């Protein structure tokens, strides 16, 4: 295995991870809710009295790069793949995360932090599927 030292950012990634854990943990402590982004997105289609709160969390998430951009130039994140792959990927992520009732945040961060076996299985499977997909897409196709 070759390590890509040029792009390796342990400290920024650790700091970002801590902030991610803090915000998810604070929402659980104060509101008793699991910060799962795919669930919050799906919840936009549910009309109940938490609808506005879900929307506001997503608004904060969308606005975050603009806030970061005020302090440091931000490379615009663009996926390096063609349009059909973008469309297929989006569909798979939208459908799959709802079928599994969670994504990287709900299962990966919150679920693992709660030592949930269900989330450990989900995280193991989506990581494994992603590793295999990247191997096939980058080295076999």
């Amino acid at each position, binding site marked *: 295995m070759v*390590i*890509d030292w040029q*792009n*390796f*950012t342990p400290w*920024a*990634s*650790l*700091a970002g*991870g*801590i*902030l*991610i854990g*803090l*915000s998810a*943990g*604070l929402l*659980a*402590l*104060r509101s008793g809710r699991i910060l799962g*982004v795919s669930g919050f*997105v799906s919840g936009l289609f549910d009309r109940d009295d938490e609808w506005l709160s879900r929307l*506001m*969390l997503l608004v904060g998430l969308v*606005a*975050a790069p603009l*806030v*970061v951009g005020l302090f440091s130039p931000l490379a615009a*994140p*663009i996926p390096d793949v063609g*349009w059909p*792959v*973008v469309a297929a*990927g*989006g*569909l*798979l*992520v*939208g459908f*799959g*995360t*709802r*079928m*599994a009732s969670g*994504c990287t945040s709900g299962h990966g*961060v919150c679920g693992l*932090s*709660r*030592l*949930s076996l*269900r989330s450990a*299985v*989900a995280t193991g*499977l989506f990581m494994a*599927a992603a590793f*295999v*997909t990247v*191997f096939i*897409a*980058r080295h076999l196709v």
Partner: protein
Amino acid sequence: MRPLFSLFVGLAFGIGLCLSGMTMPSKVVGFLDLSGAWDPSLAFVMGGAIAVGLVLFRAARPRLAPPSTRVDRSLATGSILFGIGWGLVGYCPGPALAAISSLEPKALAFVAAMLLGTVLHRLVAALRDGVAAFGRRGDTTAEACA
């Protein structure tokens, strides 16, 4: 949940995603590509988040509904489908939403497709539940007849 508090949480969560590098598809794929030049940064994101999470979620346990323990086929199939999509593009739901603000056409298209996938699943689930409810109704009728 209070709207203002959740706005603040969403902002902090999104800033964390930006700092961590999760919002850069190339960096995510660099982590997922074990056989190329491997960038292990994202393991630090997971490590940092869970280190803090273990403490806070333990403290929050009285406030949270107990986690589901069901490990079934839809959990497995859904996770695998999600992993394939994540590996293909490098976006999971959080970073994809954060990327909207760049107004990059591909980021917008990904989120549109992701919403479509979400709605599609809701329709499938509603259909299935509708069929199940119909089946139950059939059962009660059968019982009434008996």
